[in-house]
């Protein structure tokens, strides 16, 4: 039941916030309490779990909840939690708190409905991380979309004479919806293929893992899943929604988008696209890694050319997610673990940068970096934190981003050395965009000399907490790695089998995959 609780808390909290608006500032406190509750629940689960004992062969869920829902179509309300989902839910809880805190002053209108939407997004994300019934997963996948649309459209910023927040929201919606549609079609095709084989109509993840598919069908269905997740990650060239959504969204929206929503794409790849279609994924891996390299360079080069600080950070996200994509498709435990660390690290560091962007906006009322400059001495300790997060973005050792990137590259090198050599070149570009940001915003001649308000305790603790986690996971990543090691070696095992068999099994068009749980 505790799993249902994890999902219900944000949804109930959201409704309370909506109704709490008549009591002034109450929605903020309700939302804060809700996200703290989610985080504490996740941490309690973490503390109580033993990740070492899980047997890689058997279904290795740490917690499971199974309720009948629509028995006629074989649909269940089936939630399950393992190390991977746990880490990402804890991240969701933490960044949820951050999102509530960073809107404290920024959002002043319709705070009840704002927090309803915010908490519904987070509730949907938690659902995505827990659902192991494919229909239920799709429901949550769509559920996080609608409130995000409202967050961007209603509380977003419209640039005078430029793109409006509605434009960005619609673009975000259409991209994700189109991807979701492909995924729905792929889910249904998979379910019917399974029914044709076994006579059983089910959306259960565990049952579908054992589906026998022809190579061609597996490839097509895998692409259906891949594109849906690639839109979310995002993978170039399906990234178009991201810069607009980030640039127009309120800070809390950007924090959620960069920190958590992008991670649902990576999570989907790890949980569904790879395990359901291992041999098709293995065949597709070189393309996926190539797209990863393209993303690293394309994102980084575009980041170098931006003047809007939020667009710059958005493009760096695309670049970083390229590393994650390479890690996911590398088929090495080291790189998969690295991808996970990088997901968490990017969640924290990008969220930190967006929070800083929001704080700069509150003080300067602009996001245009050409109107900033020389701010170092005028903002108290804000620039110091920026330096820390920028160092994380450029992969400075000591930050979690370095551990993630280095492990991805180190783990991928034996299988795809040239991909790694190219991707390492992206590290130079990351230095260029990160230092450009510092230079344009904080260094150079000051445009005015009057000091601006420094950080208040709320802002200071937000930044300090986030940065402390970036450093913590950079210097002591082991708790994170231990939590997910079973899951990742499971994914790696699935990946390895077809790769190893491929030379001999080239002629057979059908292959049975029977790997129980992860």
């Amino acid at each position, binding site marked *: 039941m505790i799993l249902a609780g994890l999902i219900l808390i944000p949804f109930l909290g959201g409704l309370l916030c909506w109704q709490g608006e008549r009591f002034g500032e109450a929605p903020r406190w309700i939302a804060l309490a809700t996200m703290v509750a989610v985080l504490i629940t996740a941490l309690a689960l973490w503390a109580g779990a033993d990740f070492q004992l899980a047997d890689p062969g058997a279904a290795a869920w740490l917690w499971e909840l199974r309720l009948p829902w629509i028995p006629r179509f074989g649909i269940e309300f089936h939630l399950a939690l393992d190390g991977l989902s746990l880490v990402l839910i804890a991240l969701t809880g933490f960044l949820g708190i951050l999102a509530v805190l960073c809107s404290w002053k920024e959002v002043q209108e319709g705070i009840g409905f704002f927090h309803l939407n915010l908490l519904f997004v987070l509730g949907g994300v938690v659902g995505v991380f827990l659902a192991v019934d494919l229909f239920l997963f799709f429901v949550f996948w769509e559920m996080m979309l609608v409130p995000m649309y409202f967050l961007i459209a209603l509380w977003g910023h419209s640039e005078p004479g430029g793109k409006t927040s509605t434009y960005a929201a619609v673009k975000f919606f259409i991209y994700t919806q189109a991807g979701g549609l492909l995924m729905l079609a792929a889910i249904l095709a998979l379910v019917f293929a399974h029914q044709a084989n076994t006579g059983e109509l089910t959306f259960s993840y565990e049952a579908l893992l054992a589906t026998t598919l022809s190579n061609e069908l597996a490839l097509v269905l895998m692409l259906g899943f891949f594109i849906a997740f690639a839109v979310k990650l995002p993978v170039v060239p399906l990234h178009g929604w991201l810069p607009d959504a980030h640039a127009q969204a309120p800070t809390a929206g950007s924090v959620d988008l960069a920190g958590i929503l992008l991670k649902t794409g990576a999570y989907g790849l790890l949980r569904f696209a790879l395990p359901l279609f291992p041999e098709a994924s293995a065949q597709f891996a070189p393309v996926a890694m190539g797209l990863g390299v393209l993303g690293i360079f394309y994102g980084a080069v575009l980041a170098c050319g931006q003047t809007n600080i939020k667009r710059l950070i958005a493009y760096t996200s695309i670049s970083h997610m390229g590393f994650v994509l390479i890690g996911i498709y590398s088929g090495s435990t080291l790189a998969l673990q690295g991808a996970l660390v990088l997901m968490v690290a990017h969640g924290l560091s990008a969220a930190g940068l967006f929070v800083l962007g929001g704080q700069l906006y509150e003080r300067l009322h602009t996001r245009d970096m050409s109107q900033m400059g020389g701010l170092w001495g005028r903002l108290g300790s804000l620039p110091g934190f920026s330096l820390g997060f920028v160092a994380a973005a450029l992969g*400075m050792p000591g930050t979690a981003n370095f551990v993630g990137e280095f492990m991805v590259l180190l783990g991928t090198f034996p299988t795809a050395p040239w991909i790694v050599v190219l991707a*390492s070149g992206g*590290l130079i570009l990351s230095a260029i965009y990160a230092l450009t940001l510092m230079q344009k915003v904080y*260094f150079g001649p000051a445009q005015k000399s009057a000091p601006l308000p420094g950080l208040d305790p709320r802002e200071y603790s937000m930044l300090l907490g986030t940065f402390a986690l970036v450093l913590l996971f950079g210097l*002591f990543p082991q708790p994170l790695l231990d939590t997910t090691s079973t899951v990742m070696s499971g994914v790696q095992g699935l990946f390895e089998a077809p790769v190893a068999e491929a030379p001999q099994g080239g002629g057979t068009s059908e292959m049975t995959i029977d790997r129980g749980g992860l």
Partner: protein
Amino acid sequence: MTESLLPLTFLLPLAGTLLLAFSAGRLGERSVVWVGTGSIALAALVTASLGAAFILGEQSPQTVNLYTWIAVGDFTPGVSLTLDALSLTMLSVITGVGFLIHWFAGWYMRGEEGMTRFYTYMNLFVFSMVLLVLADNLLLLFLGWEGVGLCSYLLIGYYYHNDSNGGAAMKAFIVTRIGDVFLAVGLFLLFAQFGTLNIAELLTRANEAWSVGEPLAQLTALLILGGALGKSAQLPLHTWLADAMAGPTPVSALIHAATMVTAGVYLIARLHGIFELAPAVLYLVGVIGALTLLMAGFAALAQTDIKRVLAYSTMSQIGYMFLALGVGAYSAGIFHLVTHAFFKALLFLAAGAVIVCCHHEQDIRRLGGLRRRLPLAYLSFVVGGAALAALPLVTAGFYSKDEILWQALAAEQQGLLVAGLLGSLLTGLYTLRLIVGIFHGKPNSEAAKKAKAGRGLQHTVPLVVLAVLSTLLGAWLRPDLSAIFPAAPGADAHSGHTAVQLIASATAIAGILVGAWLFLTQGPKLARLVAGGVGGFFWRWWHRAFGFDGLYDRVLVRPFLTVVCGLRRDWLDAFCGLAGQLALALHAGLSRSQNGQLRHYAAATVVGATLILAVLVMLGYE
């Protein structure tokens, strides 16, 4: 017992960093200096006790394992430190010279804005540098390696109000990062081959698995060399160092002369086992060193900024160290690293003293005649300059440089030897030009006329101590590294040693004498010579250090900026947006038909019905 003190050498500077960073400007200037210098002083004391215990003890390498950083499968790099003769030598230089520079900086930076920031970065630098030299695995070394790069970036851009300083800082970081990427790929390759990043294990396994000249060994060595070239400002990744002089002068002394820029030398010396397996790359190390020392020597002749002369001279001296590594004389390379740290730190601090006393005037042409006004700075320059120019017998620089040249001869690398000798001639020339320009002749500006000598222990003691270390006494501190490195080429041979010493002494003295004659007596003639014609051409060419900046600007920077500008609109996104454009176009077309006029609708119905009928007929209702 003493080895448990080892972590203190990096924890103390870290504690200083954190204390200063979180003080957020609440500490006064004096307290900041006390905290910043104190942490390094304590680290130096710890190093001294460690060193004493090491030398008096059995001198075997000690490893302290703090914790396992990452553990995934075979990949288990730890935060573990190794103390052996090589890391002890480096550690002593870093904390010892570092302490003196921190102390002096309290005088130099007096009254500057952002003292807290300055000492935070400086302490962070020492922390990173100590980790770099103590790391027992390459991942931890890489942490220090990138950390010193970040501090270097921050300190070059310390006076951040000036845009060009920011540009210099970015240039330094990005150029060294290019080298770092090579190093990182080298690490990936090593790990893929041997399944470990522990330095000692790597060297053992490489020795077992690879034969001499193995292509993979050559490739690995080449990649590591790439990293070393970036950090140590050698050709072709040297362009950042001269611009790095935008930082405060103590920073130039510590980071861009005594310690960080020699990290590449340390790296190659540390991984000499791999370079021994790649003789072609090792030879390349020597050639790059020789080319750099000549290039930088000529460039130093044609600079007008005190600090830029010293910067090119640093490049040139590191070229000597690379030359030593290239002929397999690792020990001589490290010896020169140590003496260079003493005399170059001295020269930079003395330059700092001149600059502060002359109200931040650092153009040689606007100084002059300062020898009476600034006697201590003059003395420091003379002692440091003599060591730099390797004045025979009395200076530390002579012993280390002579050793390098002798080893080059013993290794039968006559080409490198000649380059080294020519380089020492150039060294004498530019050193004299610098000293004469600053201290002799007449003051050429108001600032120089009104210069007032610095006072106080903070100013005097570091200069005096470093001056003493730059003399013969410093050469006595030669570390015994025979347990770490293979025997140098000249270890058994002696024939020709005296000859090399004599030739080297003669060139050094010739350089100094010719320099003294030229710059003391022929000043106006020289000025006319470089004003136009062939002389002018060489002056400009050398002044721009052979035009590498312009070349890179044209070949790399501008094309990159063009790509950035070209892509700024995100064409891939625009391409995906075509789907939306198409829908809009269809919308526009179709909505035009909905115009509310009955006759259009009637006509459309008739045309549509006819078309459908026609299609039906053609499809099979014939």
